[in-house]
């Protein structure tokens, strides 16, 4: 579950402040997907940053996977990200030195002590890679994968620690239309399978009708759109 109430986020800009998110409220139930669209600079990434515990808002309430995010220390926010939030980055952000399998296995190494046996971790990573259609590509490094394949590794990595919340930032922007369609389909299926509360930012209006909820951001202000109408628009 993702719940934002009256969230406002500002950034310093010279001698005044620019409001990136303006009294935004939203709620994403488990197993559903909410899309956010809007013009460039309207505050979509800022909203994701708040929902993924990467930044603390100026005011408002943020609850993610049952945890109140406002007032957490940096270390506590890091722990929440590690345990409850999966982030699918706009660029795949894979580590160049790691094989596809290790990109996932590294998720078990982030907190200093392996939480599960290495062998079990690798088994899970193998299963997840197979689930996103990358069986047989386990040993490839990022430069040996196509853009679409990298994005699939990115998605699989976000799911590695079984998060309750999936945060997705423009997953199709680097892909052609057909490849983008496949990725959105994959995210939808995974949201249903795993019951994640998925919050997705997209510029591509062609798949908004497949979303459970569509929000439009304009100068930091959120408004709700009917998904069917959104696609037509």
């Amino acid at each position, binding site marked *: 579950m993702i719940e934002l109430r009256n969230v406002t986020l500002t950034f310093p800009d010279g001698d005044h402040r620019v409001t990136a998110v303006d009294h935004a409220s939203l709620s994403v139930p488990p197993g559903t997907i909410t899309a956010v669209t809007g013009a460039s600079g309207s505050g979509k990434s800022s909203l994701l*940053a708040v929902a993924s515990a990467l930044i603390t808002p100026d005011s408002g309430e943020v609850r993610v996977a049952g945890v109140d995010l406002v007032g957490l220390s940096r270390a506590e926010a*890091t722990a929440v990200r*590690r345990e409850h939030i999966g982030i699918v980055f*706009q660029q795949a952000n894979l580590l160049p030195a790691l094989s596809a399998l290790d990109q996932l296995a590294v998720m078990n190494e*982030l907190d200093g002590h392996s939480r599960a046996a290495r062998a079990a971790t690798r088994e899970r990573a193998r299963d997840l890679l197979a689930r996103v259609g990358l069986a047989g590509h386990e040993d490839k490094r990022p430069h040996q994968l196509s853009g679409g394949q990298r994005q699939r590794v990115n998605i699989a990595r976000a799911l590695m620690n079984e998060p309750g919340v999936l945060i997705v930032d423009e997953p199709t922007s680097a892909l052609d239309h057909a490849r983008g369609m496949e990725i959105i389909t994959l995210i939808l299926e995974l949201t249903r399978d795993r019951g994640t509360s998925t919050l997705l930012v997209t510029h591509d209006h062609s798949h908004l009708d497949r979303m459970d909820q569509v929000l439009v951001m304009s100068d930091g202000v959120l408004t709700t759109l009917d998904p069917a109408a959104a696609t037509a628009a």
Partner: protein
Amino acid sequence: MFVAWREIRFARGRFVLIASVVALITILVGFLTGLTAGLAGQNVSAVLGLGADRIVFSAPAHGEKDPSFGDSSITAAEADAWTDAAGVTNAAPLGISQTRLSAGEKRAPAALFGIDPSAAGSHFLPAGTPMPRPGTVVLGEGTAQTLGVHVGDTVSAFGEDLRVSTLIPDTWYAHSSVAWVTLPNWQSIMSTGGQPAWASVLAVSLDASAQPDSIDSATHTVSRAPIPALLSIESFRSEIGSLLLIVAMLFGISALVIGAFFTVWTIQRGPDIAVLKALGARTGRLVRDTLGQALVVLVAGVGVGMLVTVGLGSLAGGAVPFVLSPLTIGLPALGLILLGLIGGAFALRPVLRSDPLAALGAAR
């Protein structure tokens, strides 16, 4: 170290390069410390072998702060005053001078040590060596070889003939092998050479009650413990000083090289660090990875460097004064690793400051 090891393997070339630089610095440091120790041994082994608690010098000339072996001249009266002082169990006079020994056409430099033929000075010589008798000299094997003499042959110093009574392994003072004679012989050789003297220094043994500083002021002498006294050997002070300076600079260079490499390396993988933080990596974990990589480079580089030093050192050991010991190898190695880690710690700044927010939406 999950990511750290994989990065090392991935950027193999760069890590091999930096480890090689560390290895080369280790070899330089290893050779210089071995050489320093070798030269030091050639300077001072005879002084350390005296087994004294204090070395007593005459007061340095006006304007000089420290006493020196070369300028010191002790009188019989000063020696008696030390012998009679409370807490002094033994005060043995020692004459020290640089001289040239000759045998026929052959010549060799030597440090002429005059020692009290009575029991007072008997422990100066290596254990089991008979004391020189009047008119005889105890010679180092190296000097004997240079002069082509054996036990029973005669060598001369400033025209005084001395019969070789015993050969011992060389002991060293200021790069000259020591030739041991009786104090009266030493005194007469000094007179012939135009520098009459009774003795140069006293080697004294003390018990717990002794207060050498107050004896010093009562007798107008200056006494030093043996190790600080080494600095009173001019050649030791100048050589060891400059060699240690070079070694210290190499330590500094090594720390800087490691620091610079890992700073550039860490800045280069700044985006990866932001991603790992966004995924939930503990900062402590990333710090450990960074220092771990530095440690791997240092241990590999220093290890290879040490092996090369030991290998080449044992080949060169005969030709130059070079000491290979756990101390001259291990201590610099440890120092290089520690300083390298401190250098590597400078690379932690980008790790600590990297903002996970940068991973979101940012074009890489």
